[in-house]
């Protein structure tokens, strides 16, 4: 193992963590702040990935586009497309209470996956779209990864500050009020349906952006990437573990889970080689175990949601403990 190899691996991990952090941030807007149980992350991820792929690839036979645009156009398009897809879905499904919304959103992600797989004119069907340009992809292996990581970090930091600012603004307080006591928020004159739809659309747009960044990094996108295991539930584990309601928690959760997910395979490879195949399942077990432990011992996550506003809990006659 050479030093350069480690650097390349670390860069790769950092890029993936950045992508997953964007997905977790998007989910944090929906779940952490608005209490919307979206189990269809993979769907919005896919819409973003395919939109950007169609916008930025050179013209191809047999499907719409490509339009050979700059990757910036592709990524903005990905956010808009994911938001546009989220709008009617939210309009219909957000009337459900949380667990019904989860069921509906799983179904919607599956519908999106099947549409992508069965509409060759739009998405090239089961074959997927390849030869998607990667920004600075012409550089060498390491340099190209460094360049891409910088882009991902810029996007992630921008997203983090925008989301953080929004949460600390009156909008964020209103969202938490709706989450914690919908009736009261309504009584205060807040338009609960509209606000929840807003949160749903903002979150979905970030998920679409994550999908686009993923597609450009791999230079291809196929329906296999819309696997709920790696595109939905892994993101949920990241957010729950990092701390829902806390943006830094979402990013930290993405980092911790992905590092364990990826590095544990190297560790299990040290097992005798007869177990090479069986050992691969250990990491699935590890992730499950970790989620169980977090839920049991630290349900609020590694970085819990910060308490805001008036934190004086001592009131006359009430024991603070």
């Amino acid at each position: 193992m050479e030093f350069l190899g480690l650097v390349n691996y670390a860069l790769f991990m950092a890029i993936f963590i950045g992508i997953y952090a964007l997905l977790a941030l998007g989910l944090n807007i929906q779940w952490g702040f608005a209490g919307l149980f979206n189990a269809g992350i993979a769907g919005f991820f896919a819409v973003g990935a395919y939109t950007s792929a169609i916008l930025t690839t050179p013209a191809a036979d047999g499907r719409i586009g490509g339009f050979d645009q700059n990757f910036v156009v592709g990524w903005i398009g990905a956010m808009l497309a994911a938001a546009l897809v989220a709008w009617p879905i939210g309009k219909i499904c957000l009337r459900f209470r949380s667990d019904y919304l989860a069921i509906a959103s799983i179904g919607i992600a599956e519908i999106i996956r099947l549409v992508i797989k069965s509409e060759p004119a739009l998405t090239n069907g089961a074959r997927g779209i390849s030869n998607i340009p990667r920004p600075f992809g012409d550089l060498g292996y390491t340099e190209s990864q460094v360049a891409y990581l910088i882009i991902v970090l810029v996007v992630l930091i921008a997203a983090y500050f925008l989301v953080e600012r929004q949460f600390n603004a009156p909008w964020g307080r209103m969202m938490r009020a709706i989450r914690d006591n919908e009736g009261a928020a309504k009584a205060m004159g807040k338009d609960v349906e509209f606000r929840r739809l807003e949160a749903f659309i903002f979150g979905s747009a970030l998920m679409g952006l994550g999908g686009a960044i993923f597609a450009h990094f791999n230079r291809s996108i196929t329906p296999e990437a819309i696997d709920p295991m790696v595109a939905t539930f892994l993101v949920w584990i990241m957010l729950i573990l990092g701390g829902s309601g806390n943006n830094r928690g979402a990013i930290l959760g993405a980092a911790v889970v992905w590092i364990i997910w990826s590095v544990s395979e190297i560790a299990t490879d040290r097992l005798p080689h007869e177990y090479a195949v069986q050992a691969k399942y250990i990491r699935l077990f590890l992730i499950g175990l970790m989620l169980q432990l977090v839920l049991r011992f630290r349900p609020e996550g590694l970085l819990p949601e910060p308490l805001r506003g008036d934190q004086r809990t001592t009131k006359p006659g009430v024991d603070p403990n």
Partner: protein
Amino acid sequence: MKTKFLTLAAGLMTATALATVPAKADVKIGLLGGISGPIAAMAPAMVDAAQLALQQVNEQGGIGANEKLVGVVGDSACNPQNGTDAATKAVNIEGVTGIVGPHCSGAVLAAAGSVTIPAGITLITPSGTSPEISNLEDKGTVFRTVPSDDYQGRALARTMKDQGYGKVAVAYLNNDYGTGLAGAFKAEYVDELGGEITQFAAHEEGKASYRSNLAELAKGGADTLVIFDYGDGTGLTILRQALENDFFDKFVGGDGMKSDAVINELGAENLASFVASSPVGEKSESLDMFNAAFKGVGGDPDAIFANTSYDAAFLMALAIEKAGGKKEGVAAAMVEVSNGEGDAIRPGEWKKAKELIAAGTAIDYKGAAGDHNFDAKGDVPGTYALWEVGSDGYEVITEMK
């Protein structure tokens, strides 16, 4: 708590770093497969078949100057996320000279696009059949030992035209197998050869009756029905109902339809007008050698993609030997060891191959799954034939080109 997790992660990394330090002069190749995920049932046999090739190499003198060839198994889980992760680890942490796998097309495209092509590592997949893999801008570093889905569909179209088929209707199963074959067939039959397809329709699997689909398909006046489906599943139902109701006179199937279930269920006497395309080379000497060796280590030679996995690993070993162990030369050497020219090498003949390479003689690997002979895109042509139902099971009518 946060620190605990970080410590755990850091601990894992350190353990890994420590464990990898005593790197001997082993030559490593990555064996990436969909071990967890949708093809979990198929992957172990494929990995075992590849390991068999490495075992034979090591038993017969090893690679290069008596070095051991080691397979590093990675889990690509049949999706791009894990595929790229596994490929990155194989290339950067393990320092592999070449990669055999991943198994699924989506993982192959992503691993090639983000890892192996930029890093200049040669990749050979035993089971990625997507036509997109042919079109990668890969600087000649991506190969496969299984024909593209495109190939069979196009070859079938050409053969049918030669055999004098006229207007046809096409029914295909709505999954990547069915749509891939049907799309390639249509492109060749209509666009290239000027044939006529009257109806072109997908169907969902597992319905009790396809009579309404068949009635729709029969509308255009075609006398032949082309079915891209599985002969032990929905394809059988469609064929039976088409025969019962006399919708079509002639039937053509893809390799999925060449199933014994069709003969057992419908009877050979009713299948006089049914033909199917399927790979040949099934009885080659190379395949017998592989089957015997794989049985010897407790494997099931009939397992799907076992022979292509073996060939991929053996070809990778030959290419590394030919390139003198240098990563950069493997891709060029891969083409040289299987281009139809030179002394024939069959599965397991590592010692002979090693001597010939040392002597500078050209070699040509004739694998268990076919002769391979890579084209400019790193693809192998399939060896397909058209089969009819005889008194004794399926019989070859003609080779498909």
